[in-house]
């Protein structure tokens, strides 16, 4: 469920960020004085990390005096493997990592990789919905950093905006015309659960999951592209190979602003929201600095800054930020579908194999 490189936005905004890079590199290049407090923070590489270096880290250093060293992490799952091996070897490349919720739960189950956070030192986390503060047996191990929606998209030149996800099942309109994600945990099952079943509760039993996957199978004649990389879907929407499907809300907004025929829609069932959490490495001795950083990113002003500069959806209520309704709509929306993360992990092999069988017709 984790997002990989944000190719699209890196292209769109690389021009705009070039100036800022000079500033960012000057921050990173500053030699650390012995007394200076510092912290290593990992975030998804590319445009994403650059935006952090350019906008978020300098603001944090200005507010607290703590220097931030940026570390590149490719995505969530690969990074978990890296951190697991590094922890076993005794030295880790970063203090804070950015994990998607499913990877964080996986790390928690692997054990010994993440330290609990001192929530007393993170008072501003109270701005976040309790859902975004994840606790396991050892205590609170992850606080939400930022989030994104994978939304319903259509080509407005070809079809009118559907009111419900159920419209995608209509072959008279969408035969061989949709682009959906091929990964079993890319939240199509959550959409189906919200549209036709009882939502997350349907994931509780294997029969429920089978019913979800059978419903997904009915979509197969309408799917022209089962995409694995974000760029495949982007190209297919631009080329008209597909006229609708599932894609990232924020990137779709940027494409639309560039004049491409794409419209991102919140149908009546809503769109799935995924988010990344800050997690502290078990080998880090920078717990206090990490807490200050997490506290900083939990503030409404920082959440608004990230929405404007990185295009992520804020984890705090829009009303406490100074985002305009237009700014908020370009990164977020409602209603929200919350993915059944635990079920995807508890029944990992079952869901993956059943999903693959559905796709393969085997």
């Amino acid at each position, binding site marked *: 469920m984790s997002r990989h490189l944000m190719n699209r936005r890196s292209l769109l905004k690389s021009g705009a960020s070039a100036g800022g890079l000079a500033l960012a590199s000057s921050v990173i290049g500053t030699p650390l004085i012995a007394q200076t407090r510092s912290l290593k923070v990992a975030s998804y590489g590319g445009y994403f990390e650059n935006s952090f270096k350019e906008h978020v880290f300098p603001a944090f250093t200005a507010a607290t005096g703590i220097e931030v060293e940026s570390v590149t992490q490719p995505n969530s799952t690969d990074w978990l*493997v890296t951190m697991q091996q590094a922890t076993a070897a005794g030295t880790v490349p970063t203090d804070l990592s950015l994990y998607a919720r499913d990877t964080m739960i996986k790390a928690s189950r692997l054990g010994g990789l993440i330290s609990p956070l001192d929530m007393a030192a993170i008072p501003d986390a109270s701005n976040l919905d309790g859902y975004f503060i994840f606790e396991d047996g050892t205590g609170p191990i992850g606080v939400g950093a930022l989030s994104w929606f994978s939304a319903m998209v259509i080509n407005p030149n070809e079809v009118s905006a559907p009111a419900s996800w159920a419209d995608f099942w209509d072959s008279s309109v969408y*035969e*061989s015309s949709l682009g959906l994600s091929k*990964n079993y945990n890319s939240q199509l099952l959550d959409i189906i659960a919200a549209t036709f079943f009882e939502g997350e509760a349907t994931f509780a039993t294997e029969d429920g999951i089978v019913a979800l996957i059978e419903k997904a199978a009915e979509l197969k004649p309408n799917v022209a592209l089962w995409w694995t990389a974000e760029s495949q879907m982007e190209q297919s929407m631009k*080329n008209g190979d597909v006229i609708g499907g599932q894609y990232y809300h924020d990137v779709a907004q940027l494409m639309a602003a560039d004049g491409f025929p794409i419209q991102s829609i919140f149908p009546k069932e809503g769109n799935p929201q995924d988010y990344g959490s800050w997690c502290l490495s078990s080998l880090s001795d920078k717990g206090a600095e990490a807490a200050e950083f997490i506290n900083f990113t939990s503030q409404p002003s920082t959440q608004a800054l990230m929405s404007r500069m990185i295009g992520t959806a804020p984890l705090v209520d829009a009303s406490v930020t100074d985002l305009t309704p237009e700014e908020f709509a370009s990164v977020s929306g409602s209603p929200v579908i919350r993915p059944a993360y635990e079920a995807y992990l508890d029944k990992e*092999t079952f869901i993956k194999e059943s999903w693959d069988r559905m796709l*393969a*017709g085997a």
Partner: protein
Amino acid sequence: MTAVDSTKAEMTAPVPQMRRPWGTWALGALILFLAVTPFILVIVISFGQKIEGAGWEWDFTLANYQRFFVGALWPDEVTFLHLQRLYYALYYAVIASVLAVATAFPFTYLLTRQSRRAQSCWLVFILASLSLSEVFIVMGWDVLLSNRSGLPMLFEVSGATDWLKRTGWFDVLREWGLANPRNVKFKTSEFATILTMSYLVWPYAVILLYPALSRLDPSLTEAARTMGASPTKVMTSVILPTVKLPLIGSTLLLFVFLLGSYVTVVVFAEPAKQTTAVAVYESVRGATLDAPFGAAQAVVLLVTAALFLVLAQYLTKRSEAR
């Protein structure tokens, strides 16, 4: 007497060629280590145990191999999903390699009849095209087959789409998955997958066939022609038997090469028709972190390729002996 003495002398005398400097041994050991260790690691990992919702651990279980043949839910349910992927890997590789060699053969034959200068120009061009990576070639075909920038656009503009719709062929194409209600579509399809795969290995086919065909003695064909054999007869009874082994050899090499192709399949094949190579990557680097099952699939793919090579060797030997 003297003979025995001289033998003894030879045995005791230092034999310079037999002495191996330590460097050679070390280099040999290093190469062996680098070549064999990854193999052994993959085989050992394939017996590992997956932990649901987490990673995996070292173990000795045959569950991953069992899953390959009957699925993870056995014995409650049997699925041949993974065998189906292996089937598609073989299917694409066989058709694409045969197609590539079949089309490269006449080209190369005609090429060897050209002037020296023309031949070297062509060969340089073909060698240069080998530097294009799979990713690059797939990107190219991706554009060529796209709705707004490629072949479907040509169909639309030239009126071929309308013609197909009028004559009813359009519905046939829709049944074959080569059209949506608006226009023809070539992505995703077996057509695009096999086309791209053949294109990918076509230069290799030419380069593999060139030495054999250029060594072909022109006097053989000339003799056959003077004795009254038709060009077809010359091809089937003189040229083809002479180059049979290089033909089979090239096809096999390209077949094994194509068994593991990844980018083409990911981009051009629908998920129902994807291959073991793609599944291996998904298992190892995907969200499940199921390296043991990925390794088991890799081992099966390896064994399959080896079996085909052995089988081909046997068939060639048998036909040689006849």
